[in-house]
């Protein structure tokens, strides 16, 4: 008995904590299947008497969530694709090339990481407006095509690659781009995946910036749609709101389940952000 306890004591501690962490998700799921009256009726119990699956199509019909989903996928996908290109090129330059002002420029990249994103919202807003990109998907994508944090992460990863591999690649006839493609990138895949996960989660859930620069349904993203549903003039319909929330978080949850190992590695790689 004592042996079993000493071996499995951490389960006794972690299981309740896990349940605590899961409880909001469970509550959201359960509520999405209740009727309106069951939500605030304490006598109704934790589980719905009859699962109201109709809440889901009803929630999706209140606003064009299909459109919002497509926009979220387009915006997040475009941002991550652009970031992977820009951070790769910038990180390689900072890691392996010598050029005037390199240290100063890298210092500026680091300063950019330290800035809270909200501090530059106003200047970005003005820039987007001047560029005539307001209320378009470009307004959601363009400010994020580069990433100081991603450049820093990848530069550190590139510096771990032995310099002799680059020498060998040069002798094998590779220029900088070839060396990057054939030698460096395959060796830093874990870092790329880690950064991609962080970026996807950040931009998928982004609410503030899209709220600022969009005002039509054609360009709204899922978090905005969810927010509008929560603020409906008639008062929040909690069952439909929870159903819509499940729809919004499901892609990310699926993403997490598939890449959960990489997700954890990404925080270990990057330090807790």
């Amino acid at each position, binding site marked *: 008995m004592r042996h079993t306890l000493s071996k499995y004591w951490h389960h006794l501690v972690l299981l309740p904590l896990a349940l605590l962490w899961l409880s909001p998700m469970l509550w959201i799921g359960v509520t999405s299947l209740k009727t309106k009256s069951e939500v605030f009726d304490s006598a109704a119990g934790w589980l719905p008497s009859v699962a109201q699956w109709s809440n889901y199509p009803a929630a999706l019909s209140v606003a064009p969530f299909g459109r919002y989903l497509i926009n979220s996928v387009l915006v997040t996908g475009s941002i991550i694709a652009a970031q992977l290109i820009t951070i790769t090129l910038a990180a390689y330059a900072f890691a392996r090339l010598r050029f005037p002002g390199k240290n100063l420029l890298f210092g500026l990249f680091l300063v950019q990481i330290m800035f809270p994103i909200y501090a530059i919202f106003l200047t970005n807003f003005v820039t987007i407006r001047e560029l005539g990109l307001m209320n378009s998907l470009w307004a959601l994508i363009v400010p994020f095509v580069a990433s100081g944090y991603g450049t820093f992460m990848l530069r550190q990863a590139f510096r771990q690659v032995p310099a002799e591999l680059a*020498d060998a690649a040069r*002798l094998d*006839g590779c220029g900088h781009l070839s060396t990057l493609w054939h030698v460096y990138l395959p*060796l830093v895949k874990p870092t790329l995946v880690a950064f991609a996960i962080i970026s996807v989660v950040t931009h998928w859930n982004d609410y503030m910036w899209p709220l600022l620069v969009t005002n039509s349904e054609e360009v709204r993203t899922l978090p905005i749609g969810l927010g509008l549903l929560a603020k409906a003039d008639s008062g929040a319909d909690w069952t439909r709101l929870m159903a819509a929330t499940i729809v919004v978080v499901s892609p990310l949850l699926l993403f997490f389940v598939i890449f959960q190992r990489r997700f954890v590695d990404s925080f270990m790689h990057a330090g807790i952000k």
Partner: protein
Amino acid sequence: MASLSLQQVGKTYGTQTAVEALDLDIADREFTVLVGPSGCGKSTTLRMIAGLESITSGRLLIDGKDVTEVPPQQRDIAMVFQSYALYPHMTAYMNMAFGLMKTTRLDKREIEARVHEAASILHIEDLLLRKPNELSGGQRQRVAIGRALVRKPKVFLFDEPLSNLDAKLRNHMRAELKRLHSELGITVVYVTHDQVEAMTLGTRIAVMAAGRLQQFDTPMTVYRKPANTFVAAFIGAPEMNLLRCRHSQTAEGRVIDGMSFRITLDGQTPAPAGDDILLGIRPEELFLAPADTLPGGQLMAHGTVGRVELLGADALAEVNLGHHRLVARVSTEQLPQPGQQVVLGIDTRRARLFDPVSGYAHA
């Protein structure tokens, strides 16, 4: 294969000189070893030959063609790195084929044929589908050599390729490299800090120190006739004994006076310039004399044994000769004891004289 010529080749980093005015002419099929202590400029020289470092001054010619400004992949050279530099994410086959795919117009079948030919020479045919982390150190070494072989270059460059191997494997690979050189007739430039590798592998060895070439000659010439005190001390283990003596002209002739012994120079030895002189004697040119009389050409002196180190086949005995301390290689059959009074024989026929100021040897 090809000849290689470095003409006044120099490399500076800002105000710091890494290699200074290096002149080296390496003949076709020669195995040239660049040897020297860490920081002497040997690896920098190798990287300049490879094109991985730019040449600050001077010219580099391969087969008579000036390649000073030619990019590395166009110099027709191949290099084996100290850490092998195998691409971790590629199989041994791909590591060997990659360079051919990038720099040549060979089709897939020809590349495959070359890879298998090199693999056969190096006995690694069954390792081609493995990745580097599935190979032992010696196997990775062979794949790295194979990657160089498949290119059929004019010049092979080796940058301390055996330094990461254990002693037994190092001996084995040394023999393999020697076999490859004699079988394939390749022109090789080999960098090492290990003088045993230099002596056993090189057709000629170039001793470097502080960015400068000290001596470039056959191993035995460098060993027997070191050009200066640095070469005398660096080549040979243990290093050559250097005794500070006085040179004078006496009625008997020109004499080297070591206080505990005197050497009369023969008429053929050039006269040293000054009164002070350094007498260089290798440990194996010293021996414990069984009697007080010795054959001609040999000198006798009385000394006291200090430390004795057993090496197995023989031993090294430290002998105090007046104010000199010498190391002698002695047989284990006649092992002296510390503190023992001994008669030391000195074979002066192979002794070298050096200028104590410049360090250069007298011819």
